[in-house]
């Protein structure tokens, strides 16, 4: 993927998330929100290889996945504001996003819970003899769920067109990987031994990331079988909410610094800045992004609230 595109698409998501963080204390967005800050590059690169007929599923930390796939920004912000114009009309909030127009089927809140759904979507694609695939995004915590093993096993047995993306940010809320998984076992090896072609890369580095995503997708299309990519990432802020929480000391200061130095946006910015024309392009892009974000927040604020008299609607399908 081109550096400039990767940078601006990631920057757009970063700036959206930062605006949510900035406006969060106003208490107008009243739902648990898991920001993607620090992890934006992964879905940007993955989505670069997808069309809208490829499907995507995600977990509680889904904003970047939804946005990178092409999900409507206005509908997402309106959803955070609990408005009728939100992507689920105020029913689901930040953890239950959907935009069927772009193939982002759903994110769900329970850890590991959307992995089987994504496999089911890949099963539909196979039965319908389509050439498209499904992406399943989840974190390292989800790989400890039985649903992870069960889903990979079935995808391997049935040779389904699915790309599992494990964003390993090393923490399940405050619990580090070391207390949750054996030190000498990698998620990549685990998935490989289940029968899923598996890859690993640093999720902060554009070139290796692009390379593994391309290889995995080529593998899926060529072999009609599943692949998994484990990507090392880091969330910059707290598990849930708008703040930094490193005052709690659950992550070593040195570790945090190492990862902040490796911020994918910081790295790309440094590389792109070598070009003398970049500053002008950058300023134009930032202004465009900021306008889009302001429009989305205005849309959300000016949208009507949903009608509680319709609370029973859609309990059952017609």
């Amino acid at each position, binding site marked *: 993927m081109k550096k400039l595109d990767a940078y601006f698409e990631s920057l757009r998501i970063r700036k959206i998330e930062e605006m949510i963080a900035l406006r969060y204390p106003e208490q107008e967005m009243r739902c648990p929100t898991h920001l993607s800050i620090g992890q934006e590059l992964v879905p940007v690169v993955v989505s670069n290889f997808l069309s809208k007929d490829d499907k995507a599923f995600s977990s509680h930390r889904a904003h970047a996945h939804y946005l990178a796939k092409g999900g409507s920004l206005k509908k997402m912000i309106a959803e955070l504001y609990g408005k009728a114009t939100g992507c689920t*009309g105020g029913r689901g909030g930040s953890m239950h996003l959907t935009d069927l127009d772009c193939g982002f089927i759903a994110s769900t809140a329970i850890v590991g819970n959307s*992995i089987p759904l994504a496999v089911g979507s890949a099963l539909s694609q196979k039965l319908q003899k389509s050439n498209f695939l499904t992406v399943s995004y989840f974190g390292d915590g989800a790989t400890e769920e039985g649903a992870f093993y069960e889903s990979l096993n*079935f995808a391997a047995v049935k040779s389904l067109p699915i790309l599992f993306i494990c964003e390993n940010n090393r923490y399940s809320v405050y619990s580090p990987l070391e207390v949750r998984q054996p030190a000498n076992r990698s998620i990549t090896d685990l998935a490989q031994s289940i029968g899923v072609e598996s890859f690993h890369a640093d999720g902060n580095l554009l070139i290796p990331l692009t390379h593994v995503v391309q290889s995995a997708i080529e593998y899926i299309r060529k072999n009609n079988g599943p692949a998994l990519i484990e990507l090392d990432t880091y969330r910059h802020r707290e598990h849930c909410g708008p703040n930094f929480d490193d005052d709690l000391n659950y992550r070593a200061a040195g570790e945090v610094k190492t990862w902040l130095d490796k911020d994918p946006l910081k790295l790309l910015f440094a590389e792109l800045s070598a070009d003398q024309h970049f500053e002008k392009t950058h300023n134009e892009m930032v202004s465009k992004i900021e306008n889009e974000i302001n429009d989305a927040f205005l849309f959300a604020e000016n949208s009507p609230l949903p009608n509680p008299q319709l609370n029973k609607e859609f309990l059952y399908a017609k």
Partner: protein
Amino acid sequence: MQNKTTTFAEEINQAQHCAMAEDNSMICMGLGINDPKAIFGTTTGLQSKFGSDRVFDMPTSENAMTGVGIGAAITGTRVLMTHQRVDFFLLAMDQLVNNAAKWHYMFNGQMTVPLTIRLIIGRGWGQGPTHQQSLQSWFAHIPGLKVVTPSLTDNVGQLLYQSIMDNNPTIFLEHRWLHNQVTTQGKCLPLLGEPEFTRTVRSGKDYTIISNSFMLSEALQAHSHLLRYGIECEIIEISSPTHINWTHIFASIERTKRCLITEIGHTFSSVASEISHSIYSRYYSLLQCPISIIGLPHYPEPTSYKLTKNYYPNANTLSLKIAEDIGINIAKINLNKHHDIPGEWFKGPF
């Protein structure tokens, strides 16, 4: 042809064949679905007719496979899953409760979940604590699920066919002891008909029995026995605890003023107690005797033959209670020699 006999299991099989033929996108999956026993004969011939892409055995992964079913359902595939026992399906509560039940609601009506899950309830012959649970009350508690609990051969095919074709997630609770129940083909309701989830299967003026699943078989026996004493019971079948036609029930209570409700599971915190509450809150002063609820005690079913003797209520439990409420003495019915089998056809193990 009309007089030819058919069984509960055959009607279930037939409904699946017709649904698969009707909807080319539909799939059937379940552990053992095409094994030599074909899930008590209920899935016979499906794979050979519709192919192994659409009818397939699956890994022993109840939770993820339920999720796979939901994922397939929301992306254009109609899905039927079968589990040989309810109890194993308890591993799938995350997918059932957090996804299937809520999906249509949570995503504001943008997607539907055409998924039906057949769960077979075991009983007796040593099924013990974890092969016999009747959890209609659990499932009915979750908004967004449809629960169907068939009782009779004449409508079981229609109920299953319509559950499959419905675009809502449906739990279809099938009692193992009903699989050999026989009727004539001519009596079976058309698959394409609209199911009557609350229906009167015996009319009577003296007493209302509200029942479903295998307990309805006991109620029918009690009904015939009590007729000999001039007591006419009305039996109302509740084939969907989540879709009760209250008007139908209330009309019966207004006529009979007496009521007994059977519960296929534990009576504590049950569908039966919910129905009872609805009747009491409307007819407290009209009722001529307290409503009785007859079901399982609040402890798991033990395994030993000796320990299960009085675990399940039967036709005698029902008829004696009704006779007591009406104020007459009656004799007991001579029931099966063994309390732990539905008939001599059942030799175990499942």
